[in-house]
């Protein structure tokens, strides 16, 4: 499939809509992971899979490893550094004790991810003790302060690049809530003060510091002991801060993964509730189809990147024209011209805001009222104070009264009616499952809905419908084949995974192509269990009677026969007709293009070549087949 011109240059009219589908990559991110490698990280464990206990260090490292694999494909421009602190060995530009910057050859400390970096980080744990070693760096008697050093190193790494074009973040992973706990007196105060100052300096430079604390079993990570000041939490923020809890390894991993995502809003919109009463909302794209990365076209000879240039050519005169300002539509045999301004004026049926029209019971929102992935909205007090309060009040009322709001969203691309469905927060051991807020569901217009049900309606009597007994049998089957814990995002996309795996294998020059496990296939074994098989059989018999297999085979065969017969006749016919032409001569004289597509198809059908494609494609296929 060759579709790049459309991909690279879409009509400017379609553009805004695309935003919805693609995560913006407008700004890049510079990110330093600071991973605590103190003995405490190794000693404290949580139960993982197969009853094996996993250390906090393992949780942290495996999460990062997983995360950077996604990052290298989705956000290839981001620059990453991984630093361990509280280490025995040291490796950093400042030559500070207790800090080890993990890196591979041909890469700066803070740089784009490379295939090699990912591969080596995968096995960092195996050689960790030998190469890096764990040793707590803040001990009484020495002036060394590994936390301070870690911030210093991270800050130095992030000096690169401008704060205007890049987000700079430090992610701190630790399970020690009181790093200076074993120091006494003035030294402790002094150390805490200098570390705090270091962190403040970094923040003044536009670097945000985020803490991902791992809680010990039975003891919550106490943020206020030391880190609250350090990362600038006060009052309200502190109450909102959620330490990572969780007994199980899987839960911890899940929570950690969620925190590593940088929350990006799509845009800020105003929600007009009544005239003169507008609140401010942020929209987020929580669910969007992921595409297998953008394609860069290369010259196959040199492997150097290409750029496409577009030129407009007048079909009548062949002259080059600038981007034409007018569009036209043939109507009543005339060309009706529209200027771009007129077109955008036509589409401007309302201002860009979201306008409340009223409320309806949730039962009015049918399953077929859907066109695109939903957008999440959450209130913001940033510009209009009081927005959150109104939002929460409406949110609670809507949930309690089981109603959804209908609003008009006047986006420039496609002004549309939307449903706002309130979603309550859902939390489990793995953290937040559903965030609290509203989901904006894009509703179709009457033009978009097709009346398929009526297409095959019965005119000579009633449609057969199931008897009570048949419904009973179906119910029994349903009880058997029950996916109790089904969650929508439990499957990885096999097509995407296989694509990633191929790219990764090629990047790392691996010889073998990886096998991808397709998780989406049904559980054949489970279906064959006696209970389920019996329920299936009973339902089948109740509807089809005893001779299901025969009947089905007959219909299947009948169809196949008819289709294959038709094909056979066509190819025989083509063989005969094909013989009328002197193909090699036609090809040599360049006369193939004078034949009709129908005539060309005789050749391709007779020689069992694919018959699809335009005339040029057919000709080139014939020429290739003849070996010319």
């Amino acid at each position, binding site marked *: 499939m060759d579709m790049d011109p459309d991909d690279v240059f879409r009509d400017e009219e379609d553009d805004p809509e695309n935003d919805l589908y693609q995560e913006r990559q407008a700004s890049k991110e510079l990110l330093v992971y600071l991973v605590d490698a103190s003995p405490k990280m190794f000693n404290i464990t949580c139960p993982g899979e197969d009853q094996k206990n996993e250390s906090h260090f393992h949780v942290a490292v495996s999460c990062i490893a997983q995360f950077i694999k996604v990052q290298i494909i989705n956000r290839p421009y981001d620059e990453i550094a991984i630093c361990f602190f509280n280490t025995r060995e040291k490796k950093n530009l400042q030559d500070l004790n207790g800090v080890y910057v993990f890196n591979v050859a041909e890469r700066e400390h803070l740089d784009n991810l490379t295939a090699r970096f990912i591969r080596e980080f995968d096995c960092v744990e195996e050689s960790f003790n030998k190469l890096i070693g764990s040793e707590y760096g803040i001990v009484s008697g020495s002036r060394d302060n590994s936390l301070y050093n870690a911030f210093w190193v991270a800050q130095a790494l992030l000096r690169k690049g401008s704060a205007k074009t890049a987000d700079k973040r430090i992610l701190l992973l630790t399970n020690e809530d009181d790093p200076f706990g074993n120091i006494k007196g003035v030294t402790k105060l002094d150390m805490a003060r200098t570390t705090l100052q270091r962190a403040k300096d970094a923040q003044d430079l536009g670097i945000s510091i985020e803490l991902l604390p791992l809680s010990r079993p039975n003891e919550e990570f106490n943020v206020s002991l030391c880190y609250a000041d350090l990362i600038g939490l006060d009052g309200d923020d502190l109450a909102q801060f959620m330490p990572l809890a969780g007994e199980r390894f899987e839960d911890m991993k899940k929570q950690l993964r969620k925190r590593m995502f940088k929350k990006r809003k799509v845009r800020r919109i105003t929600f007009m509730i009544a005239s003169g009463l507008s609140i401010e909302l942020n929209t987020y794209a929580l669910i969007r189809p992921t595409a297998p990365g953008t394609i860069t076209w290369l010259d196959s000879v040199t492997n150097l990147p290409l750029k496409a240039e577009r030129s407009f050519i007048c*079909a009548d005169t062949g002259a080059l024209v600038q981007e034409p300002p007018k569009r036209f539509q043939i109507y009543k045999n005339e060309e009706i011209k529209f200027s771009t301004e007129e077109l955008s004026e036509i589409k401007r049926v309302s201002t860009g805001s979201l306008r409340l029209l009223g409320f309806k019971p949730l039962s009015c929102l049918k399953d077929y009222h859907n066109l695109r992935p939903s957008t999440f909205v959450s209130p913001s007090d940033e510009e209009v104070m009081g927005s959150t309060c109104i939002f929460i009040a409406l949110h609670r009322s809507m949930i309690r009264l089981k109603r959804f709001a209908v609003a008009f969203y006047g986006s420039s691309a496609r002004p549309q009616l939307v449903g706002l469905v309130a979603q309550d927060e859902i939390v489990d051991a793995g953290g937040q499952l559903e965030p609290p807020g509203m989901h904006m569901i894009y509703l179709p217009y009457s033009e978009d809905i097709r009346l398929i049900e009526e297409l095959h309606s019965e005119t000579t009597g009633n449609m057969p419908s199931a008897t009570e007994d048949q419904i009973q049998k179906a119910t029994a089957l349903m009880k058997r084949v029950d996916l109790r814990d089904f969650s929508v995002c439990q499957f990885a996309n096999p097509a995407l995974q296989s694509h990633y795996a191929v790219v990764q294998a090629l990047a790392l020059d691996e010889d073998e192509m990886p096998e991808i496990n397709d998780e989406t296939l049904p559980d054949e074994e489970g279906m064959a269990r006696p209970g389920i098989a019996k329920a299936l059989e009973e339902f089948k018999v109740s509807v089809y009677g005893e001779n299901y297999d025969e009947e089905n085979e007959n219909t299947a065969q009948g169809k196949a026969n008819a289709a294959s017969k038709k094909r056979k006749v066509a190819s025989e016919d083509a063989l005969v007709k094909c013989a009328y032409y002197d193909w090699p001569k036609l090809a040599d004289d360049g006369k193939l293009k004078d034949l009709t597509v129908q005539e060309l198809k005789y050749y391709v059908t007779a020689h069992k070549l694919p018959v699809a494609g335009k005339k040029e494609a057919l000709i080139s296929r014939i020429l290739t087949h003849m070996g010319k």
Partner: protein
Amino acid sequence: MARNKEGLILLVDVGPTMHSVLPEIQKVCSLLIQKKLVYSKYDEVGVVVFGTEDTKNDLTKEVGGYEHVTVLQPIKVVDGDLVDVMQQLPRGTVPGDFMDAIVVGMDMLIKKYQETIKGTKEDQVYTIAEQMAAHGMKIDCIVFKGNQIHDTHDSIIKENDMLLSIFSKKTKAKAVRVESSTSLLGALRTRNISPVTIYRGDLELSSTFKIKVWVYKKTSEEKFPTLKKYSDKAPSTDKFATHEIKIDYEYKSVQDPSKVVPPEQRIKGYRYGPQVIPISSAELEAVKFRPEKSVKLLGFTNASNIMRHYYMKDVNIFIADPGNKKAIIAVSALARAMKEMNKVAILRCVWRQGQTNVVIGVLTPNVSENDNIADSFYFNVLPFAEDIREFQFPSFSNLPASVQPNSEQQEAADKLVMMLDLAPAGKEEALRPDFTPNPVLERFYHHLELKSKHPDAAVPPLDATLKRITEPDPEVISQNKLVIDEFRRCFDLKENPKLKKSTRRLLRDRTSGSFGGEVVKNEGRSTDLVTSTSTVKVETIGDSTPVPDFEAMISRRDSPEWVSKAIFGMKNKVFDLVENSYEGDTYPKALECLVALRRGCVIEQEPKQFNNFLHHLYRFCQEKDLSSFCEFLASKDITLITKTEAEDSEIAEGDARSLFVKAEPNSSK
């Protein structure tokens, strides 16, 4: 008749009870003709009106009777005249008989496409219905019930309903009842798209139990028509000029722009970190994921496990193979059991052989309420793990007390949610998607028709009926004025003073007149990621400082587009400000913007841009009951740009204030 070609008779009741909605009917019917002119130029249409004083039809000549039925337009291929006919429907004087009209319409169709059948027993609905079924005709009835129906008509209505219901049982007929003029516009399918299946084959419950199903699209977005690019290069004498523009792509090496690479020499590269991995299409073909065509059941689960917002795309519908009775029963049994148990089914679908991905989706039951329509399923696509971003949001209960609504506020919100009701009991549900037309498309076709008569016609304002879609219904608002006022009183909104100061300070610090990092992130798509490390330039008009933004934009010289972009952005800004105003609170700011826009247009010698805009704004304010803004402008002495200020202006010095002089009598009423 060729496939995809349609013969259509429009039967319109123009009797006295219909007069109030005839304008809407004219609109929707001309839209239907217009869409045919664009999408299916060879369809044939005839128009019959009934309830007229006069009688004019073939049957009355041939067999007598059929009074008050007038054939306005015998059946013919659609053309521009038909649009005009539809826009000038006569107003009738007598209550019409729809049965007569149906027979006349049928007769026209039969005569057109078949041998004439004489002597139909016209009085009997059954016979008509059979005839229609035999000739493969369909009938769509749209019944409009206004609020003004009198009690005396009840028996007639009942009788008519009964007759119509016989139709829908015996033929491929459909009766739709609507109550508001907005739904009337949406109820008529203005474009007939013949549906095609996307899958025909087995729904595999297990490897040994398969049900034959057909899958169609249930919803699919009707796009804004794609207009062709216009070229004015052809000489005006050339009668056969297409005026089309072809687009050519050339691929050039980034390092050496003079070197053109032929398309077949290209190879796809995928980015992996800093590397770009070339993969030839042959290689890609060889390793591509290729599942077998099939639709397989993974299992059933509770409906509550699948939340509504996970639906990803437009919706498909699964129906049993219409020729397979057993399959119809099997689907019906499953659908009814699922509905009873509140369960849904999870499927894995590969629609076509050779498709390179799989789709996971949810099947929900659609139990038919109509005896002659089979039960079916709706199918919605669900996301994969990769498609979900798990952002964390603070729990509402953890937020500070200052943003928690108190009980009084909560009560006001409850009332608002209850009272601003779009689906009141006993009345038609307002804005039902099935009956709500797309206002943008309606407006485009309206404009297209206007332009076909006057090439310079301005964009028409949004029709009042369509405004019920984009704006709240004034009737609902006025009925609930107390509730809304109470809500407004309970909550306190104010602009964040902290933010304003800080952004202002930030703005002054930056010499390039740049904007917050925030906006750059959101809007700065066009800036190159890698190279734009230097200054960030203004690319949009922001909320906080529109005037400096506008000035910065309009004076940018790196591309000629900036002037028009700036003007366009500023116009939108002014609209936003005016429309979002409450008792005029945003007027001063809008005025500031308008003054800046005027100044900019004078400097850039774009007087028309400003003058047209001012006219437009003025009209806009009149429409939206915002004439207070016009008064405000007149009092602040905002005038059109005159010829002395800018050469291109067509406004003489004396006429500069003409707009508002004219406005005076209107706004004072």
